[in-house]
């Protein structure tokens, strides 16, 4: 079998720089961090929201509340999906009422995950607004959803998948493009 070609989009330093810029954009648009809360979408968004939280602490000296949300129970394809897979955890141990919620995910693709995440957030309270930060926007939207903060726009085909590794040693963080048999990788 042929080994599928892999194209690196960002290396460790690249991810670091992109997240620094995203953090500055978030702070600029919201005029500081006072009303911000971060919510990472499980699993890919969680490590990214941790990095952004650390950067906000370094820049503004503010520890913003951070949680995460699993969207499995809000999917629109539950009935069509195969056998049930393991649920992930949701943990938003603070009120989001009247807060500016920064939803964080690794890859923005069809937009369906974001729709589900917004529905989930609405069950936790009534945020002042929801903003979306993603590391990679790969296109192919199926819903009218766009990100407020985008790390990198990467044109892809549906037969490719974007892999994001932002855990462990920062020097080994990476984002790369690989070919897959089916349109997976949202």
């Amino acid at each position, binding site marked *: 079998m042929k080994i599928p070609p892999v194209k690196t989009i960002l290396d460790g330093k690249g991810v670091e720089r992109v997240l620094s810029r995203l953090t500055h954009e978030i702070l600029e648009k919201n005029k500081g961090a006072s009303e911000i809360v971060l919510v990472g979408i499980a699993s890919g968004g969680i490590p990214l929201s941790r990095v952004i939280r650390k950067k906000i602490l370094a820049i503004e000296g503010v520890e913003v509340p951070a949680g995460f949300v699993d969207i499995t129970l*809000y999917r629109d394809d539950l009935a069509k999906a195969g056998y049930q897979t393991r649920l992930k955890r949701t943990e938003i141990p603070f009120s989001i009422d009247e807060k500016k919620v920064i939803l964080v995910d690794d890859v923005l693709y069809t937009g369906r995950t974001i729709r589900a995440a917004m529905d989930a957030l609405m069950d936790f309270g009534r945020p002042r607004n929801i903003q979306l930060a993603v590391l990679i926007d790969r296109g192919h939207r199926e819903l009218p959803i766009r990100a407020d903060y985008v790390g990198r726009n990467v044109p892809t085909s549906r037969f490719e998948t974007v892999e994001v590794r932002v855990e462990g040693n920062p020097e080994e963080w990476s984002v790369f493009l690989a070919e897959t048999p089916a349109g997976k990788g949202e």
Partner: protein
Amino acid sequence: MEWRRRHVLGLSDFRPEEIEFVIDTARSMEEVLTRDIKKVPALRGKTVVNLFFEASTRTRTSFEMAGKRLSADVVNFSSSTSSITKGETLLDTARNIEAMKPNILVIRHPASGAPHFLSRHLSCSIVNAGDGANEHPSQGLLDLYTILKAKGKVAGLKIAIVGDILHSRVVRSDLHSLGRMGAKLWLCGPATLVPREMARTGATLTSDIREAVRDADVIIMLRIQLERQKTSYFPSLREYSRMYGLNRPLFSLAKDDAVIMHPGPINRGVELSDELADCHQSLVLDQVASGVAVRMALLYLLAGGSHAAH
């Protein structure tokens, strides 16, 4: 792992990793129950039918609540208000309900094996909510869940189950859920109500409650099912209560941090003294709360898409 089961008929053939999968799913469900809005859209458009041929408030309400928290439509049929009293057979009743296209049928029946029988004739998923003296799988799982939550583990714990072991479907499910996860189980009751064959499960049998309770981590008291005592297994309720009822002096033989459980409904003053039923070491109400989360997990896992096509 992926969930591949279509029915939950009993825990006897559950592998440990399947039990663990349900428990893990129930933990996520419990989080949903802590929110302001205790409802998720996971089972929107699915129908759950509760078909109860025996009186039950707790289990039926628990399944109903679980279905509704997941946004399923829940319909209740109970034997006292339906054509069952007009002489319809079980299969006819079930087929008629199936014609209305439910996704999951939750059944309680006085005959052991009734859910298994239906699973061979119907195409929807079947959940056993108690069949005769056979099994009550959701109770077995919620007992495990409750103990894990209180104690952090089950392996190595001494768990005493006291009462009418012979007629108890709760015991038969607990033996699988708790036994398979490594608990040391003691089954205790009057000799007439503790079948010798149960020693094969690895549990220790005794008719001395002091022996069962001594150094126990968990004590599960079973309800004396007065409606099932067709022949006399013990001389009188009063004598039973004196010999096998749990009270403060007996409970003091257990470990200091021991907990008391009961599948309900409690016959106060028979299995459990008032004082113990309401003490802070009683997990009876925690069991009820866990029940909803565990049943949500079961309904969610059974409602997955592809097995509808099988």
